[in-house]
Structure formats: structure tokens, C-alpha cells
């Protein structure tokens, strides 16, 4: 059975090698300062107490007043999992976070997907382009303020994309 790191234990272990990087912790999650993502992830991957060699998933959630980038980590040798989160773009401006592609190559397409659909910039990504939608697509559809064509018919608010998609 995969053991999930509890938020408190993980926060303590991260603080031990990267002081000041943890903002808060909950039952299963740890919130990090976006500026310390690279240092913490490097430590989570290489340090012998974690060995998170597989990045399961990178995604983001739009919480209206800020965005949250969520990383699900798995350690194959320890059979353990952990969730780290970071809050970016407070006030919906300048949402950006350092890219972890240099640590886990598996983040490549997933970060591009988050940029494409949620509009969070990943600083240092080697190929920072849209992935699903085409270059020039107006807006980022998974944001809560994106108005789809159907929603514009129902509410009368102008659709974010005038092509009707």
C-alpha cells in the first residue's frame, strides 16, 4: 500500500532542508512559497528521506482570487506519495511559477497544458507553447471567467471567443 505523507510531517521535513519555504500545511497537503519550488522539488527528488522520482501529475485550479498549482509526487523506491501546492497569481495578475522540467521531464506536456488551458506561466520551460489549442486562441478556457458560447447565449455576456467555440 502506498503511504501518503501527512501534511504536517512533510512540512516539517521540507523546512529542515529549505527553511522558510512552507506557507501552511493541511491533512495531506503542503503549500509552498512559489519562489522556493525549484529548491524544494530538487530536494524532494534527490534526498534519501523522500526520493520522489516520479511526478504523477501537475495541474492547476482557479480559485477566483488566486490560482493554485498542484503537484502529485510518487516515490517508487519508498512506495510513498505526497501532494504539494503553491498559490500564484493573487488578484489574478501575473500568474507564474518556476518550471520543474529541469527536475522531472514528465512535467513537460503537463505544464504546457496548464499554461494553455489555465494561463499560468512556467518560467524556464524549454518549449513554452500552447499544446491543445492553437496559437492566437483568445483566453484560457479553464479559467472561471472564461465565457463559453453556450454561456453567452444564456446570460447575454459576450463570449470570450467570438468564433463560437
Amino acid at each position: 500500500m502506498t503511504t501518503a505523507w501527512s501534511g504536517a510531517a512533510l512540512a516539517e521535513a521540507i523546512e529542515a532542508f529549505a527553511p522558510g519555504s512552507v506557507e501552511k500545511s493541511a491533512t495531506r497537503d503542503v503549500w509552498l512559497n512559489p519562489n522556493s519550488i525549484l529548491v524544494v522539488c530538487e530536494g524532494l527528488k534527490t534526498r534519501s528521506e523522500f526520493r520522489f522520482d516520479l511526478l504523477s501529475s501537475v495541474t492547476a485550479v482557479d480559485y477566483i482570487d488566486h490560482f493554485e498549482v498542484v503537484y502529485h509526487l510518487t516515490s517508487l523506491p519508498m512506495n510513498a506519495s505526497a501532494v504539494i501546492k503553491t498559490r500564484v497569481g493573487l488578484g489574478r495578475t501575473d500568474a507564474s511559477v518556476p518550471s520543474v522540467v529541469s527536475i522531472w521531464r514528465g512535467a513537460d506536456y503537463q505544464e504546457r497544458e496548464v499554461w494553455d488551458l489555465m494561463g499560468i506561466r512556467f518560467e524556464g520551460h524549454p518549449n513554452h507553447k500552447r499544446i491543445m489549442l492553437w496559437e492566437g486562441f483568445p483566453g484560457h478556457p479553464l479559467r472561471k471567467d472564461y465565457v463559453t458560447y453556450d454561456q453567452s447565449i444564456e446570460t447575454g455576456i459576450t463570449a470570450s471567443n467570438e468564433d463560437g467555440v
Partner: protein
Amino acid sequence: MAIKTQPVTVNLGPQHPSTHGVFRMRVMFDGEEIVDVEPVFGYLHRGSEKLAEERTYTQVVTLTDRMDYVSSMLNNHAYMLAVEKLAGIEPSPRGVWLRMIASELQRIASHLVATGFLLQDLGALGTPLIYAMRERENILDLFEMLCGARITNSYLRPGGVFMDAPDEFWPALKRSLVDILNTIDELETYLSGNEIVFSRTKGTAVLPPELLINASITGPMLRASGVDWDLRHRNPYDYYDKVQFNRILHTASDNYARYWVRVQEMRESLKIIHQCVEQIEPGPVRPSFDEIPRLIRPPVGDAYVAIEGSKGELGFYLVSDGGISPYRMHVRASSLINLTLLRDMLIGGLFGDLFVTFGSVDLNMGEVDR
């Protein structure tokens, strides 16, 4: 004497019969050698994650069917486990056994498609694919008995499945298990020792295990490189801790190893189904509507659940704001992430190996683009 060549960029797809749907690549060739590859995604992007935000938790099942459309049951399964974790639902035992049977049948169907199309990509036009598809047809007939649908099943509900298997399902399943085993034997007789298959697949697109792990690649691709990582064994969900099966490993990590792992995994899935049939007991297939209403409102929070899909770790991340539909749904699509190393696999290889490598990755564009 070497002939001087000039690099040429060729566009492959999205309307190409060997691209497993609508995959597009811009490939730069120097003679027959591939010097650069750029995959272009998005031709099947339907915005499922956005659509899910406007549907109730039960309605979203229909969207998951259409993601990886050759393994809908597995998508249903992963999604329902995430909903159950989010809402704290205890599933009914009979429903769990039924969905395990459905999932393993679907895994066989998916691996059959992968194997059939790999051989099709190798140039064995028709015959192996027809053999594989004939058996998949059997499995789809079983699904039709279970839920009335063959491909877009929507069979699972929070806490189990929506209806019990009819009486005629069990003898039909028994017959099909024998037929499937015969077909696997037949395929293996023709293919696993076939010299053409050997010369075309052995030693091509070799990837070291450390690189695979670093690129988040899971499933048969990872096990073909000798890494013992199967979520059914390492993190057993449902009743996978009550069934015995072997983990199939190969060490070559080439196209042949990936083919071989899939074929052997079908045999293991058959074993799991036999054990499920032995252990299943009568009872309700899902909790009653008094216990779990049709409209569920999970408490505020988030949940991530991953299962061993046919192509790798298939995860669903759900966020609830306490309402009747997910605030956010994200799918960890193994087909997309397994393509991360496409450039490493193809660059330096020959044009003839391109589609073979592509077939051995086993991707589904419905899941890549969602």
C-alpha cells in the same frame, strides 16, 4: 560513396491511417533518418475538463467514456474511485467485484487493440488485427449484456455499478474467457517467435528505466524496462489485494518488450477475472438511493485517485466546492504523458520504425487531447 542528402520536413497526420486517430507530427528527415520530430496535439480536444464543471458528478461519467474510448470502463473506474474518495462513499461488495471484472475485460480489449494495431503498423495488413478485433468483439458483447452499451459504457455509479449482470452473462463470460485465451495463444504462436516481428521490433526505440521514470512514463512501457510498478499491486484499490496475479516484467525496454508485456498481461487479467468470478457473492450492486442520493454533494475539498489503466497511471483529480458538480476536474492522461519521450525514441531512427514505435507506445488520441 556517401550520397549527399538534404534534410526535408514532412508533415504526418492528422489524417493518416497509422496515427491511431488524429495525431500530427512534423518530422524532419535526412534521407531515411529522422533528425527532428515535433508532435502537434489538439485535433480531438473537446474540453472535457471544462464540460465536467457544468455536469453533476454522475453525469460526468459519460464524459470519461469518451476520453480513452478503447478503455471506457477503466476511465469510469478511475473517476468513480475519485468521487467515492471525495464524498466518502463506501461501495457495495458485489458492485466492486463487477467493476473489477469489467475493468479487466476492458484491459484485455485495450491490449488487444494495441497489439493488433502494432502489427498493422508493422505491415501485417489485416490478419492479426482481425484476430484481435474478433476477440474484442466478444468482450464488447459482454459489455452489452452488462450495461447495454458496447463502447461508451457509463456502467459505474458512485458506490458500485448501475445494474446487476443478467443470468446469461455468467455462462457467456465463461465461454469468452476460453476463447480469449485461445486467441492469445494463437497470436503468440504466429507473432511472439516470428522472425519478421523480431527483426523489426527488437532493439528499436530503447529507453533506460531511469529516463522513463523521470519522464513520468508508467504502465506497460515502464514494466517493459524492468521496473516493478503496477498500481494494482503497489497500491491496491478495490479488491485487488484479494486476487493473485503475476507482474509481467521485461528488461529489454524496446518495442518488442512492450508488445510482449501487453500480451502476457492479458493472460494475467484472465486469471484475475477467474478469481473475481469465484469470489463474487449475491447482494446489492450499489448502495440504495436512501444511502447515496442521485445528486451527491461532496464536502469541500479535493481528491486524487490513480488506478492502473491499460496505458499507465490513470488519475482523476477532483475539487469540490460543496455543490452538485465538480468545481474542477483534471485527468492525469497516461496517453499524453507517455508521449513525453517521443523525440528520444524517434530521433536517430529510421522512417520505417516510426510507426512501429508509435504503435508500441499505445496511445489513444481521445485521451491525449480530451
